[in-house]
């Protein structure tokens, strides 16, 4: 289990992380999401004991990372950003070195290496020097190193960069699998990755938490922006624009009419913002029935994580006030 309490970190008076608190349990995959410079990597460096926090504390299984870094590093598998490797070594030599480091011996050693190699599909390049490997293979070798000693905690800084789409799916599957019994933290720019892999999301912006929770919870908290668009026509013959506008005025959950356009066959396309609380798409159906209108199409716009992300990381007011804080 990982717990961060009011973490702060400054580099040469520039504050990279400004008071971040969160916790991750075993069996959870936490995704750190945010634009470049949001503090994702810094948080990971603190959790792995590479950098110490300026203020606040990071606890791994209840032990502070600055108090007993060596004990904590033993529990962690870490893939740093850009997967640093020694260019003169082959994956075989590199994993051999890491097995030395992790104190793996005898049959446990060879089975650990076999498992990591097959999980990351490194077989074809096992004896090639790293400097000849593609970006994708380097990344997977970095990941193989992180999972070699079957650690309880995995910290993966952008684990899928440089991989092709098939490899991405493979690695995501692996992370999901590992996440069932381990504590995993990963960072990413890729929003689908969070939706595909993470049980919990932390959206970071400028060193602060803009929102946290599951992807759905965050979406729910920002539902004020929920929109619906639909096509409607009169049940008996045509309905005029004016009449429709008046009818829309009687739709109680409508917040604002964004657009109203005439479509074919006397129908209208309506784009409507819904009120934040207590409104649902069903209201539109009920409204249409009472008004004697026929709904031809209805498309609810659920905020995608992508839109939430853009909203949280560009609009300064949002994150602080209503960003799904628990």
């Amino acid at each position, binding site marked *: 289990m990982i717990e961060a309490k009011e973490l702060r970190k400054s*580099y*040469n008076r520039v504050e990279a992380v400004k008071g971040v608190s969160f916790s991750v349990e075993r069996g959870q995959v936490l995704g750190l999401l945010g634009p470049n410079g949001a503090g994702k990597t810094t948080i990971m*460096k603190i959790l*792995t*004991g*590479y*950098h*110490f926090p300026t203020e606040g504390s990071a606890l791994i299984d209840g032990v502070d990372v600055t108090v007993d870094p*060596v*004990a904590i*590093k*033993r529990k*962690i598998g*870490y893939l*740093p950003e*850009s997967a*640093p*490797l*020694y*260019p*003169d*070594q082959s994956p075989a*030599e590199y994993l051999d*070195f890491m097995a*030395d*480091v992790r*104190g793996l*011996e005898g049959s446990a050693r060879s089975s650990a290496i076999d498992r990591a190699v097959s999980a990351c599909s490194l077989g074809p390049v096992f004896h090639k020097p790293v400097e000849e490997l593609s970006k994708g293979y380097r990344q997977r070798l970095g990941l193989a*190193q992180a999972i070699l000693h079957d650690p309880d905690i995995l910290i993966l800084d952008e684990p899928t960069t440089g991989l092709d789409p098939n490899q991405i799916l493979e690695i995501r599957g692996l992370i999901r699998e590992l996440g069932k019994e381990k504590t995993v933290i990963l960072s990413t720019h890729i929003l689908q990755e969070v939706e595909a892999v993470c049980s919990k999301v932390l959206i970071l912006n400028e060193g602060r938490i803009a929102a946290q929770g599951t992807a759905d919870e965050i979406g729910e908290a920002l539902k004020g922006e929920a929109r619906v668009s639909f096509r409607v026509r009169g049940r008996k013959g045509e309905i005029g624009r004016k009449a429709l506008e008046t009818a829309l005025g009687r739709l109680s959950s409508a917040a604002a009419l964004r657009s109203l356009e005439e479509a074919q066959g006397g129908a209208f396309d309506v784009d409507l913002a819904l009120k934040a609380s207590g409104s649902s798409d069903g209201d539109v159906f009920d409204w249409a029935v009472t008004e004697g209108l026929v709904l031809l199409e209805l498309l609810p716009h659920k905020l995608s994580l992508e839109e939430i992300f853009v909203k949280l990381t560009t609009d300064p007011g949002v994150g602080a006030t209503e960003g799904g804080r628990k």
Partner: protein
Amino acid sequence: MSGFQAVFRREFRAAFNSPVAYGLIAAFLVFTSAWLYFVTGFYALGLADLSSWFGMMPVVLAFIVPALTMRSWAEEVRLGTGELLLTLPFGELGLVVGKFLASFAIVAIAVLLTLPVPIMASFLGSFDVGVLAGQYLGVLLVAAAATAIGQWVSSRARNQVSAFLGATLLLLVLVLVDRVGSFLGSAGLLSEFLNWLSLARHFGAFGRGVLDSRDLAYYLAATFFFLYLTAWTIGRRKWS
């Protein structure tokens, strides 16, 4: 396997998997042999005395050792592998000692490969084995201190080139500083201090086959001091 063993094995293998170790050992042997023939004129002298040959070894080491240690930390920083090393379950000192021993082992191999010189020379006249052992011990102690210093410079340098230049300069100053002392005259606290500081001055007694505990302590203290300083330099970055 403990941290320094794992790091030692990796570093030692890496050096011999590349031309680095072979090149430096060869350079050391060629240079010392050339010195023996052309500069000391050993074979013309007709004396079974190698002390002037051993006397120049600290100067040679001031060039060879930095070429070996320049990679140790500067390169880890450049490749980003330092982050990997420092998130392994070891203290900084273990990593520093592992790297130190790997570099020192290569220098020691180079130094011991000069053994054929005294062995061949022993056919020409009788050698004092005790003196010879003292001279080799002295060279190895200088090499250990130089390796620790070179590694420390590398831990502070941004790249290999500045690590090499910085360490060579520092070592040459430390080797030659006693000449400044003799310039200043024999008396005076400053010249005594400069003599005490000199890597070469302490080597002198070993060269004559005298094992002085003060000289031994000087080299060991210098080695341990710079190993700790390196570990401290690296550890301090966590807070920066």
